[in-house]
């Protein structure tokens, strides 16, 4: 089964997203900030990452740039998931290596649609 790492400093968002992603037949891992996410990726790269922007310790954008420099870091399909939903932020996320972008708030249909866009479902 594919794995999805959900990276968000909100426990509520992680729980909601995890339920949706499990329904899409993924094993789910969670991280509360970019540094924890990087530690987990270095242990084993997930197939997909659902990534928040504003987080303590290491934000989503810095994590993504660091991830793509890591060995094997190009493997995970990264879906940014953020309340920052203007074109500037979206383009910055895409140019930093995100494969898709979800504007919060989201529902199960949106998450599934975005995962389908990148071929995860």
């Amino acid at each position, binding site marked *: 089964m594919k794995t999805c790492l959900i990276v968000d400093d909100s426990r509520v968002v992680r729980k909601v997203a995890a339920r949706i992603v499990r329904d899409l037949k993924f094993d789910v891992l969670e991280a509360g900030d970019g540094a924890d996410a990087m530690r987990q990726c270095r242990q084993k790269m997930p197939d997909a990452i659902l990534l928040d922007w504003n987080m303590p310790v290491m934000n989503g954008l810095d994590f993504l740039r660091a991830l793509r420099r890591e060995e094997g870091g190009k493997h995970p399909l990264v879906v940014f998931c953020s309340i920052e*939903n*203007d*074109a500037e932020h*979206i*383009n910055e996320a*895409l140019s930093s290596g995100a494969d*898709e*972008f*979800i*504007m919060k*708030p*989201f*529902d199960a*249909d*949106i998450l599934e*649609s*975005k995962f389908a*866009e990148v071929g995860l479902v």
Partner: protein
Amino acid sequence: MQEEVFNELAELALKGSGQAIPKSKSYLIEARLAAIARREGFGTMADLVHCLKSRANPVFAAEVASALVSKDTCFFRDRDALKRVVDDVLPKRLKASNTGRLKVWCAGGSTGQEAYSLAILLEDELPASLRGAKIDILSTDICKVSTETARVARYGHYEVQKGLSIHRLVKHFTRLETGQWEASEALRSRVSFRQHNLLERADGLGNFDVILCRNVLSGMARASRTKVIESVSKQMMPGGMILLGGGESVIGLTDKLEPARHFRGGWVAAGTANAEASAA
């Protein structure tokens, strides 16, 4: 909902738009008429029905009938079929055309996402065989509000995230201060919109190379489905195609159409499928 109230509204839906709403789905009536009820100050569906019966206002009755039609749509619904229309069907039609102009009709196009999806494909993935072709897309819907929404081309947060990749969103839409996303002028210029009830004659709309009538018939009563498909197919140019939704069929409704040989979900004039297969 009281039975007589349900019966009145179900009858209105049937006569006004061909929709068949079973009693088990009476909740759909309340959901679909909620906005009208709120606007007019009706506390219950019974109040709305009382108004319909006492006022004898055909414009209001038509508005209620059109509100009862499902508005369910999204960008790139069944994208493979849309892609095949652009990559296979339209180029074949262009070869057969002596005007260099192609016409597509999205029948029952709701708030425009289907038409704009086609426009996006023509902008982003135009096959070489269609270069120089003039392709007109007309989208019609029974609902005045849906038609106007489509024409204005402003979509909300949830609508632009279903079926539309982020790359296409930022390429073809602009985020407004209201938070809505507006389609580009380039997209809007490719599509025109008109209000049209599929139960009525369509000869005023012209003739078309491809007619998309997807996920429209399935909500209708059988007699309405026959009426609609026969009316719509009259607007098909010789050699043209009608595309239905996945799982939809007109077998048993009309003998004027037969399945296209090389396009699942496509229907062509009866007796022409072999010619279409030879041209493939």
